[in-house]
């Protein structure tokens, strides 16, 4: 059965890919076993991150983008992430609601994921899920992050192309300049551009992008000049321009060799994330709990406790 699933993923079978993503999310060891097998078949897809503050219209924009990419006969995988409750672990994943028109299109695969305790706007197994969709043969994989604030930019290390979605009337100029997000994007879109305040927001973004351009020490290695686009996703405005920009960015990355560099960053981050996750789980044992209890009782200090816990962890162990 395991071999059937590996073969199913490589043949692009939806049920097989869907099941492996579940395994990865649940830390079932069969998930990582499949990734070990299919990894050679990955590395081809363009991974596109869509991020921005809550309420910016990321899902609606994604829906419009998927429709436009389908018109160009590209196969699209979508990973839509919503927050899990830090208290119960439960989640309400509602991004599909805005993408219902693609439900029966065999060229589109949409998967909703809860963050499951992961900070940074992604879910624990987003990297792994991207590998599965890549092996299934999707040309583009769109990762829609949870609504993010000023520094949750893990998506930048996951995606080849990061699209930042803004909306009129959120925050002032200072907010825009200090936000880590704005330093990172490859493409900017102001959505809901029919709203009041669009011109002011556009001006702020334009100035910020200009500052970013002129304060750069070295020119962008891909020779890419960051576009600032306008969209009203609800009315289906701005889709072709966004798709053009994403595909042009891919061309620029490939022409300059930056595609391979960004892929390398991805893999590096994936590995480090797995190690971090594993160490964190290994550090939470009954013995380590006893160490932390000593700090709570103020018998030892936090630094000494951390050293004791690190000594307890040791090395080795198979990753799930």
């Amino acid at each position: 059965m395991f071999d059937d699933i590996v073969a199913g993923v490589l043949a692009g079978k939806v049920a097989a890919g869907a099941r492996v993503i579940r395994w990865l999310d649940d830390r079932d060891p069969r998930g990582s076993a499949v990734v070990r097998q299919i990894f050679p078949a990955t590395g081809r897809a363009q991974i596109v991150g869509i991020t921005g503050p809550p309420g910016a219209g990321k899902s609606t924009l994604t829906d419009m983008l998927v429709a436009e990419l389908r018109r160009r006969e590209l196969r699209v995988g979508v990973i839509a992430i919503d927050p899990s409750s830090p208290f119960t672990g439960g989640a309400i994943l509602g991004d599909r609601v805005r993408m219902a028109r693609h439900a029966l299109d065999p060229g589109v695969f949409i998967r909703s994921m809860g963050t499951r305790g992961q900070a940074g706007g992604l879910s624990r197994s987003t990297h792994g899920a991207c590998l599965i969709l890549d092996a299934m043969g999707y040309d583009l994989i769109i990762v829609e992050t949870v609504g993010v604030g000023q520094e949750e930019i893990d998506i930048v290390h996951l995606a080849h192309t990061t699209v930042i979605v803004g909306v009129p009337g959120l925050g002032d100029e200072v907010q825009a300049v200090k936000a880590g997000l704005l330093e990172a994007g490859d493409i900017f879109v102001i959505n809901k551009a029919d709203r009041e305040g669009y011109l002011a927001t556009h001006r702020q973004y334009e100035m910020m992008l200009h500052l970013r351009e002129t304060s750069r020490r070295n020119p962008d290695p891909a020779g890419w000049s960051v576009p600032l686009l306008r969209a009203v996703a609800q009315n289906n405005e701005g889709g072709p321009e966004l798709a053009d920009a994403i595909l042009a960015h891919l061309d620029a990355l490939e022409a300059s060799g930056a595609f391979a560099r960004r892929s390398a960053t991805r893999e590096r981050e994936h590995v480090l994330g797995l190690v971090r996750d594993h160490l964190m789980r290994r550090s939470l044992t009954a013995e380590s709990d006893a160490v932390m209890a000593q700090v709570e009782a103020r018998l030892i200090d936090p630094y000494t406790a951390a050293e004791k816990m690190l000594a307890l962890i040791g090395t080795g162990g198979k990753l799930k």
Partner: protein
Amino acid sequence: MQDDPKQRLRVLLAKLGMDTHTVGITIIGHALREAGIEVIFTGLKQTPEMVAAAAIQEDVDVVGVSSLSAGHTRSLPKLARLLREQGAGDKLLIVGGVIPEEDQPHLLEAGIDRIFTMGTDTRDIVRYLEEWWTQKQAQGSAWGHV
């Protein structure tokens, strides 16, 4: 925290046809989230084909349909059949809402696993799902076949 993998129950909640009453399904969704379940909403005006496709892409364990304005006597059996035909017959299919007594035998026969009528306490639904899930995991079939 244990090192063993822990499966988190995933439930797809859907509304079929022209039924646009969303209060019930929203309340259920929040109750399930409180119980630590991952709930996926598909939105309104879904066809049985759309719900079956979403259930497979999302690899959920349970498909819950809220039905408050008839239409269920045709669309629900169709959904049950599509899930079976697409190799997803092991998913639990439940329905809640306004389901007249006389329709129930027909629905149960067509492959709907459980019917919750109006006035059901959400805690009863959560308890039912938790018991079903515990049993399914104990059988070791929860990661069943693809």
